[in-house]
């Protein structure tokens, strides 16, 4: 089955460089210090931040900075066939790369001897859930009022039917030739995550990187909008007036 038709449309009708529909909400969980919700294609993901708070066990705390802990978890009902709720090796690896994608933006030295916990629950999964998680986690961290030097946004680029595409769906990820998730700090222009599965030439690697960053820029605008909505209750038009 082909993933791109003769007029260059993808299976879900998108253009090659088009994002899936995205919905972002901030501050949706009353108990959490910060929270966010993202829908990106079929992904539905909750992000909650607890902390800075006391570390248990105490001996893992660090005297100079906060420790950041991230758990990426998929609900058993989030996939086509039930997912065992125990953390898989995939989830442990993704938790680690998400932590390392968020950490560069956080001023952890402002909170010595504490822990900041980021919990990411994938309620329904689609391609690119780690990217959606990073975009949501960054919003939840901002909502928690954690000191940050920038936001972090993430988006994948990849290759299907020999063409470079933005923001892969689950089907494009599985049946396509490459998937490259990228996370980016938009104001500092720094890349905080890069993974690659599948084959790209050196030239395609450079093009895919540019494509992923263009997706990240669009997502960053949506992130700002979601924060404005939460804190000023305003749509883009009025929030521009505030600026």
């Amino acid at each position, binding site marked *: 089955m082909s993933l791109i038709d003769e007029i260059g449309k993808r299976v879900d009708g998108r253009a090659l460089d088009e994002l899936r529909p995205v919905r972002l909400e901030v501050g949706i969980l009353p108990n959490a210090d910060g929270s966010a919700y993202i829908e990106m294609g079929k992904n539905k993901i909750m992000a909650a931040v607890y902390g800075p708070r006391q570390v248990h066990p105490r001996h893992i705390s660090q005297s100079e900075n906060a420790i950041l*802990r991230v758990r990426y978890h998929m609900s058993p009902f989030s996939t086509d066939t039930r997912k065992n709720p125990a953390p898989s090796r*995939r989830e442990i690896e993704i938790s680690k*790369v998400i932590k390392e994608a968020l*950490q*560069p933006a956080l001023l952890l030295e402002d909170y010595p001897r504490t822990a900041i916990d980021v919990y990411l629950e994938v309620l329904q999964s689609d391609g690119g859930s780690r990217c959606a998680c990073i975009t949501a986690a960054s919003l939840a961290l901002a909502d928690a009022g954690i000191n940050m030097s920038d936001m972090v946004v993430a988006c994948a680029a990849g290759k299907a039917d020999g063409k470079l595409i933005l923001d892969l769906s689950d089907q494009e990820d599985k049946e396509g030739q490459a998937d*490259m998730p990228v996370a980016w700090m938009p104001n500092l222009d*720094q890349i905080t995550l890069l*993974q690659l599965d599948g084959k790209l030439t*050196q030239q395609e690697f450079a093009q895919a990187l540019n494509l992923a960053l263009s997706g990240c820029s669009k997502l960053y605008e949506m992130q700002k909008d979601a924060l404005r909505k939460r804190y000023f209750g305003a749509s883009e038009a009025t929030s521009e007036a505030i600026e």
Partner: protein
Amino acid sequence: MAGQKKYLLLPNITADKIKNLLKSGKRSDGRGLTDYRKLTVEVGTVPKAEGSALVKLGESYVIAGIKVDLGTPFPDTPDKGVLVVNAEVLPVASFYAEPGPPDEDAIELSRVIDRGVRESEMIDLSKLVLIPGQKVYTVFADVSVLNVDGNLFDAASYAVVSALSQARIPEYAVDGQGNIEATGNRIPLPITTLPISVTTAKIGDSLLVDPTGEEEAIMDARLTLTCDEEGHFCAGQKGGAGTFTKNELLRIAEIAREKSEEIRAQLRAMIQVAKGYT
């Protein structure tokens, strides 16, 4: 959720020395920024394994062994054999290593090696099927780190690739009634390419390949890129709490392409790649 990793504690004076040398493009062990440490590969170290390799990259020692079993294929790939890669850092390997189940670092290590072997299609898994949907070869590549001195991603990846490429697995045949029997022959795995992983670390503004344990202790970030023989990138993984600029990533891609060819030639000279498999 993982606890806190135990870091190599590097005295400030050593860290400063490394950083100061890097300012003039030098490294504390005298290497250039894009030089690998001495690489040696010994294959067939463990004769009971179907394939094995002991790799030494500087003072990082890694041993990989291949075992093959018959098993059932995954439901979504009924016409493909199964490949399982598992990595462990043994307690013999370092002051900081502890016995117990693999932590997040070891899991990341196995998954990045797996990605390189799988995505490069190094082994043609479609040739490892006896009865589609029912019986296939399951190839286990287990890799153990024996001594840690940085760049485990590359050392472990070379060990797995070397062990796979020289493995001789028991041959099975299916008769008319669907019975499976060992023929007594040993056959090589269907190898199509040698994927080579190249890890580049960033310390300050410097990019350097094959970081030592000391360099890793102070690096900002690293990027591992795996290249196949056609020069495609087939796997990538960024690690560490630092960041890269776009230009740095493009430079690393260039380094990875060049170094992968050099390392592949070295590996090839040290192992005998299975040939003539049909």
